[in-house]
């Protein structure tokens, strides 16, 4: 009877002691991260029956120590950790990218503005050498800005692999730790205990892992937790599979387990990989697109400009054709397959050759312009060189490195500029000093009604000393006698004319001009026999005489129209410039349509400039013109003297070299000598024609830049980065707040409140005191019982 109290008392002491110990443990671990407070579970001990129907309690049992944790909350916390860590990385990367851009103070937009600004300054004084140097210098700085930004973007991307590798090492340490803990927990709980502290540690490890990679943790009935990464088991029981880093097929970082790729969507690693494979490349591509278009557009204008030194004597391209077919020969591949950085389009290239002035400060004379038609799918670079060599006074070769080299004969120069020919009638077929007879209609001509061989006599010399030459046209001279081209006729005539006269194709018409000038020189063309070639060709049979001085035709100005064409000038009737009333000159376009008529009769002052609406002005000197004699001259009006971009692709007289943001540089020739900068289109020292074209680039919407100007396109990119960075910050703040909310919920469930523990400790302490007192009482009672028999 009396022995039973001691048991209850001892149990009570035990329970109180455990209670205090748990409270002490909670207090000690109040600041341990991931700690869940523990609570002692007490239950009344099993009673025993005193008599039938009377039960007496036997004290208290400690049935267990529970860990207060909400597993659902834990899962949500793990997910939020992934989200938050990912958002941190996103923001950090965008912040760094924004820093690299260095806008709006000293970034690429400042470089672009500096470039255009320097061109505007040069416009005010095109002959100033220092300002010209300024343009080249600002180009250099702009190119450096592009290259620097491109390199830094690359470095940022490349650092991803190393960063991910470091994180993966950490992740593998964590999975190993989790596996080890699984083993220990299973062993411990198999023996019936609660492995509370170990579970806390394991939970904390999995949370840290979820910051790196989004994981799925599933608890088994044995108490071990399986951790899945991307659906694959990283931890299964006590076994952990290592995660490795590798490069994907597109050379971006990827995670692997074993040999196959593992997918991760949230967490630090996923954010880094996303940044490397999607975000950075997108910005890099836009930067590259900007650089490429800038190079293309600036070079289009610069290659067709005129440097300060005037037409070129020799010019070598910066780039060469690639030896595509491996035969050791360069330049024999089709242009479309020659490995140029920019595509060559089908179109026309206009090459101008002029006689250079004798001394400095003069203008070149005798400008001849040749149109070369280029088909990149059917022509090789050597074909182009051959066509250039076919032009008088020019030689073009393809050197062993595949570059095109063009040289002019001594005393001559060439250029690709669209400038107007200041003396379009240098041959003298428009009322020149030498007599000329031209066809009154353009080719092709119909000679189908004639019998071949067809002969004409050309009489030259003077009236007192005539000389006759016979020109014979054979059917073999013409591809199609019903549509005989002017060029075929010119060739056929010149084969027979000798030194007395020369045939030319002017404005699409056949013109025969005597080679001796003066008022006594004469020219007449007549049919031989029954032929009617003269009327079929529209040639007058009347005798023409020359003049002492031909009508001087001068052209000034710059063509400001669209498209390339030719203006053909023919007199409307016969008369003397400035004297004959109602004398007019008709201006036709290249298809023969009338553009306008110019009044050059009475009331017109010879030599005075008449302006046409397209920026061209023409003046006619004194003299006699004749419509019946078929006087004519033609003026090429070019808006774009290279519609093929061949000069850009080859890099001939280019401003920039390279094709993207990583290799854009200013042509070293320009850096070496700023006089090579082509500010002009014509030859005047103050000509700023090309500067105007370059400045207009600033306002031009470029199709490949989403119809933006270069500066607007870059401003868009900067704006996008700004928005993305601000957005990332916003997301980060939101995730952070969500995290705080979840954390405080967890604190609420599992956190230690020191005051609470204090109260518990006091309670258990009092309980202990009471139990101790009870035990004393039991002991006294027992003593009394023992001392009864004494």
């Amino acid at each position, binding site marked *: 009877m009396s022995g039973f109290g001691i048991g209850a008392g001892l149990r009570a002491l035990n329970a109180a002691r455990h209670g205090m110990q748990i409270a002490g443990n909670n207090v000690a671990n109040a600041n341990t991260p991931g700690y869940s407070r523990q609570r002692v579970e007490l239950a009344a001990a099993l009673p025993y029956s005193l008599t039938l129907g009377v039960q007496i309690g036997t004290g208290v049992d400690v049935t267990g120590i529970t860990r207060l944790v909400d597993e659902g909350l834990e899962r949500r916390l793990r997910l939020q950790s992934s989200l938050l860590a990912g958002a941190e990385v996103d923001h950090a990367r965008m912040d760094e990218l924004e820093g690299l851009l260095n806008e709006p103070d000293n970034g690429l937009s400042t470089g672009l503005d500096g470039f255009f600004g320097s061109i*505007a300054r040069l416009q005010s004084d095109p002959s100033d050498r220092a300002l010209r140097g300024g343009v080249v210098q600002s180009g250099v700085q702009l190119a450096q800005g592009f290259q620097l930004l491109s390199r830094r973007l690359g470095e940022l991307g490349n650092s991803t692999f190393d960063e991910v590798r470091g994180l993966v090492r950490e992740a593998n340490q964590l999975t190993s730790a989790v596996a080890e803990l699984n083993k220990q927990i299973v062993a411990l709980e198999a023996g019936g205990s609660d492995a509370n502290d170990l579970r806390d540690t394991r939970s904390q490890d999995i949370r840290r892992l979820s910051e790196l990679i989004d994981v799925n943790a599933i608890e088994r009935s044995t108490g071990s937790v399986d951790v899945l990464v991307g659906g694959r088991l990283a931890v299964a029981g006590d076994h952990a599979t290592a995660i490795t880093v590798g490069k994907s097929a597109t050379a971006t970082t990827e995670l692997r387990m074993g040999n196959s790729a593992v997918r991760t969507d949230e967490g630090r690693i996923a954010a880094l990989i996303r940044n490397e494979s999607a975000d950075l490349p997108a910005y890099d591509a836009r930067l590259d697109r900007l650089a490429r278009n800038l190079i293309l557009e600036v070079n289009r204008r610069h290659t067709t400009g005129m440097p300060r030194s005037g037409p070129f004597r020799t010019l070598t391209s910066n780039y060469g054709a690639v030896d595509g077919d491996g035969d050791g020969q360069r330049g024999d591949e089709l242009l479309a397959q020659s490995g140029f950085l920019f595509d060559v389009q089908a179109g026309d290239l206009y090459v101008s050759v002029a006689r250079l002035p004798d001394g400095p400060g003069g203008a070149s004379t005798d400008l001849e312009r040749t149109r070369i038609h280029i088909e990149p799918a059917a022509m090789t670079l050597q074909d182009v060189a051959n066509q250039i060599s076919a032009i008088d006074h020019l030689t073009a070769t393809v050197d062993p490195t595949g570059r095109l080299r063009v040289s002019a004969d001594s005393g001559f120069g060439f250029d690709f500029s669209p400038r107007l020919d200041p003396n379009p009638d240098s041959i003298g077929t428009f009322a020149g000093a030498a007599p000329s007879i031209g066809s009154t209609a353009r080719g092709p001509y119909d000679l189908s009604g004639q019998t071949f061989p067809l002969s004409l006599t050309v009489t030259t010399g003077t009236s007192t000393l005539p000389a006759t030459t016979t020109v014979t046209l054979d059917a073999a001279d013409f591809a199609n006698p019903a549509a005989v081209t002017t060029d075929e006729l010119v060739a056929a005539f010149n084969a027979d004319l000798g030194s007395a006269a020369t045939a030319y194709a002017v404005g699409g018409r056949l013109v025969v001009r005597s080679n001796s000038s003066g008022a006594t020189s004469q020219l007449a063309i007549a049919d031989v026999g029954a032929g009617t070639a003269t009327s079929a060709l529209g040639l007058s049979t009347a005798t023409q005489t020359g003049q002492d001085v031909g009508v001087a035709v001068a052209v000034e100005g710059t063509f400001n129209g669209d498209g390339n064409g030719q203006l053909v000038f023919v007199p409307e009737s016969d008369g003397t410039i400035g004297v004959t009333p109602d004398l007019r000159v008709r201006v036709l376009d290249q298809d023969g349509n009338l553009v306008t008529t110019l009044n050059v009769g009475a009331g017109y002052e010879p030599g005075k400039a008449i302006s046409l609406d397209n920026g061209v002005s023409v003046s006619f000197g*004194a003299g006699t013109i004749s419509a019946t004699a078929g006087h004519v001259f033609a003026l090429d009006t070019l808006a774009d003297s290279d519609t093929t971009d061949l000069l850009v692709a080859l890099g001939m007289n280019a401003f920039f070299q390279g094709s993207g943001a990583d290799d854009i540089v200013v042509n070293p020739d320009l850096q070496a000598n700023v006089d090579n900068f082509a500010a002009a289109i014509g030859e005047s020292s103050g000509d700023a024609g090309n500067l105007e074209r370059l400045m207009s680039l600033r306002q031009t919407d470029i199709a490949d830049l989403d119809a933006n100007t270069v500066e607007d396109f870059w401003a868009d990119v900067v704006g996008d980065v700004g928005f993305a960075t601000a957005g990332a910050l916003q997301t980060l703040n939101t995730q952070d707040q969500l995290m705080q909310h979840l954390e405080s919920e967890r604190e609420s469930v599992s956190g230690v409140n*020191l005051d609470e523990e204090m109260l518990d400790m006091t309670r258990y302490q009092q309980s202990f005191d009471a139990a101790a007192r009870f035990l004393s009482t039991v002991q006294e009672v027992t003593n009394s019982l023992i001392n009864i028999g004494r």
Partner: protein
Amino acid sequence: MTLRITQGHLFARALVDIHRSLGKFTSLQQQVATGRRVNRPSDDPSAALRIIPLQNDLRGLQQMSDNVALSRETLNTGAASLEDASNLVQRVRELTMQAVNGSVDQGDRNSIGEEMDQLLQQLVSIGNSRRGDRYLFGGTESGSAPFELIEDGGGTRVVYHGNHDRLEVEVAPGVTTALNLPGDAILQNRVRGAVRFTGDTGAQPTGRGDTGVGFQTLAVTFNGLQNAPAEIVAGSGTSNALGAIGYVFTNTPPTLSIGGGPAQPIPAADQDFKTADGRVLNLTVTGLPATLSGTFTAKAGLSTDRGATIADVADFTATAVAVRNRFDGSVLNVDVRNLVTTGDELVKHEGTFDAFTVLATLRDLLRNEDGLPDQVVRDRAAAMLGEIDGAHDAVLDGLRELGFRSSSMEVLGNRVAGLQLSRTESLSALQDTDMAAAILDLQRQDTAYQAALQIGARVIQTSLQNFLR
């Protein structure tokens, strides 16, 4: 269960609040220190999108403002040069008045002529005015001197080597102006009026197709015989009869009379034969032709370049004979239907002035190397006064235009300045910190921060332990 608050919770909250407070504090501090609200695009992305174009705009406006200043400077330099030219022409007028004065003798005229020469050189160098190393009056040929003084067989003339192209710069949005001027328009004006011949050869102007500037001298000379019988040839003496000349021979005694004039005995060598109206043909007649009467033509030779190029006139019904000047390439069309005698015609192309030629002609006139009589020199000098005034008017017109352009530059400059101001304001509104507001915010934030710290400290420190005994 109601929400449990733990110490951990309290600490965490306190930390969060302190960080947030400090964060706001730092960003405000940066705004105040840099004066900028937007230091990076992410500070305000939509503002950043507008800031970059505004900055570029401002720089463009600055360039325009510079161009306006440059333009005014150029115009002012040009105006200064033209003022010099104007004063020079005034001086020329004074000197001419002096020369016209009857009391001046050849020696004085010589020294006046020398001063004219100096003034001519000076005028050329005014035309070649420079700004820095750029020539002002040559169009876009600003690298080489536009006016070249040439003294050769054709006399003295000044050739314009410049062009008429414009060097356009932007001085206001959408407005461009030319920074250069074509000098020939001011100093070699070509607004053509009528042509006048002053002389008595009978040659008439046509007024069409002439390209000469200012005035020229048309020399009409005897250029041989055409369709004359073989027995009549031109002699070596001077002839001044031109045109169709009738001849009548008499058999006995053998005489010849031309143009209704007195009969002279023949054969004769280098003999002057007079016509009825007093013109003279110096002929050598060797005998009697088959036909005793008929008409031959005394051809004329027309030249404006002192005989370097002679236009031969055999057909005296022509209404427009083109006479070319080899040296300046000009063409003068002459109506020869009334041309009867040799001599000089002073040709004046009204409305066109070449200031240089005026000076050159005056100089040559005063030097009087041809030995013309005093009165002729004085008369011609007096006739030149009109030319001088014309040249002066041209220079004054040029000055007026420059002045007008300069004042419109001023207007444009103000407009650009106004635009700059409004852009700067817009930019500032977007980009700059409102200092007053930011500093107030800073102080407020500071107070909030301190309050957070204080209260946090209070809450954290209190615990049950303080009260349990």
